[in-house]
């Protein structure tokens, strides 16, 4: 056991480097995915049938061809076409496009489930199209879409574990190296626990975003209220509502 922890302490700086690569891919991929999701999600609600069809086709294309295929396409095939991108860019592109296409469906669905009365109200207030979307519809859809986006964010984090095949030394790669000095169980245990902790933190952040989004719509408590621990008396005063 002693040597396991010694090896871990020795490898720790490298594991942190790998963790940094994993986080860059996850967050970079998430940002790109969000941009793509909003563009395609709004695009697939357009009246213009050509643009709408194009957006849907792009969505189905990136959802239907596997993530790994896309990563390898960017890394192995694009250089043959004279476009050699750095591995990190390939990784972020692959993750962002794949999960952006999934999230676009979430964006589209959430916008569609904002009640029609809200649309009618924006017309009654003679808001412009962009005002409608930015000030009324999207904030409400945003609160609806966060739980599904959280799922895809975790999927994306898990998807990054393949990137050592496009030469990126991520968390998985460095725990593979660690295995050579320690028990198999120990090395992968460390790896799995680190991934789980990141996933858990990401989930907490997304839950906080959801509480904030709902509070801004005037539903539910603010983030600060949600985070303050409740004494039994205040909880009772709220009618025993779940915190």
């Amino acid at each position: 056991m002693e040597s396991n922890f010694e090896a871990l302490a020795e490898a720790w700086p490298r594991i942190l480097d790998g963790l940094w690569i994993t986080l860059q891919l996850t967050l970079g991929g998430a940002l790109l995915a969000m941009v793509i999701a909003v563009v395609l999600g709004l695009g697939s609600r357009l009246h213009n049938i050509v643009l709408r069809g194009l957006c849907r086709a792009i969505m189905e294309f990136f959802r239907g061809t596997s993530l790994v295929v896309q990563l390898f396409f960017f890394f192995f095939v694009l250089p043959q076409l004279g476009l050699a991108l750095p591995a990190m860019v390939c990784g972020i592109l692959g993750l962002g496009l794949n999960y952006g296409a999934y999230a676009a469906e979430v964006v589209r669905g959430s916008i569609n489930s904002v009640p029609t009365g809200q649309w009618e109200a924006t017309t009654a207030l003679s808001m412009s199209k962009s005002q409608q979307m930015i000030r009324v519809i999207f904030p409400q859809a945003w609160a609806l879409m966060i739980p599904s986006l959280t799922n895809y964010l975790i999927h994306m984090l898990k998807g990054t574990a393949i990137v050592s095949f496009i030469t990126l030394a991520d968390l998985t790669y460095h725990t593979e190296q660690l295995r050579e000095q320690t028990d198999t169980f120990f090395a992968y245990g460390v790896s799995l626990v680190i991934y789980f902790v990141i996933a858990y933190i990401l989930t907490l952040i997304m839950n906080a975003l959801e509480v904030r989004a709902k509070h801004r719509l005037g539903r539910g408590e603010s983030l600060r209220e949600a985070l303050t621990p409740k004494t039994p008396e205040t909880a009772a005063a709220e009618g025993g509502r779940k915190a």
Partner: protein
Amino acid sequence: MNGLWDWDAAWAVLPELLLAFVQVTLIVTVLSTAIAAVLGLFIAILRMSVPKPIAAVITFIGDFIRMTPIVVQLLFAYWTFLTIEPLTIGIVVFGIHYSTYMAEVYRAGIDSVPKGQWEATTALSMSKRRAWTAVIVPQALRATVPALGNYAISMFKDTPFLLTIGVVEMVRAGLTFGGNNFRYMEAITLAGVIFLLASYPTSLLISRLEKRLAYNY
């Protein structure tokens, strides 16, 4: 050989891809889906019939498996059970990983069975076992079929992760061909096309099934 697309290379790699598709990708998808569907149902029922602290432990283990990468789980199992064939390891790991998703689907399905159905089984003095098998599960399954189908598709698209433990599935076959011939274009593109051709019609079918099975109590 320097053109954008070389049909000779495409025809040369296609049989290899299709062979890997049938021998690995399809087999893993079918067998792992079966494992996940059965194990998931077992987990969901188990969690509802044991005392709360034990249920909490089962839920935690499920969350842990679901929130950590399948690649790491594959490698873990591969290096732990070196004597077992990688393909078998892949099938079992995919089955277990996705069973944690399916357990959630079943839980939602079981929750969606109206309370009156439970009360009816009590009124008919059915045994607990009979209540589950004859009344609750058949109704819960109906609500879960589309979700299970969607997870099967997502598993199908995850099968390339098997290349991390040396299983020659479709993408691996494509990469090997690409490496030997210095041309990745045709192999990788065709692999993507095969994935798309197989998964898109299936997902259309499932969404039609979803509409047909939509059930109003």
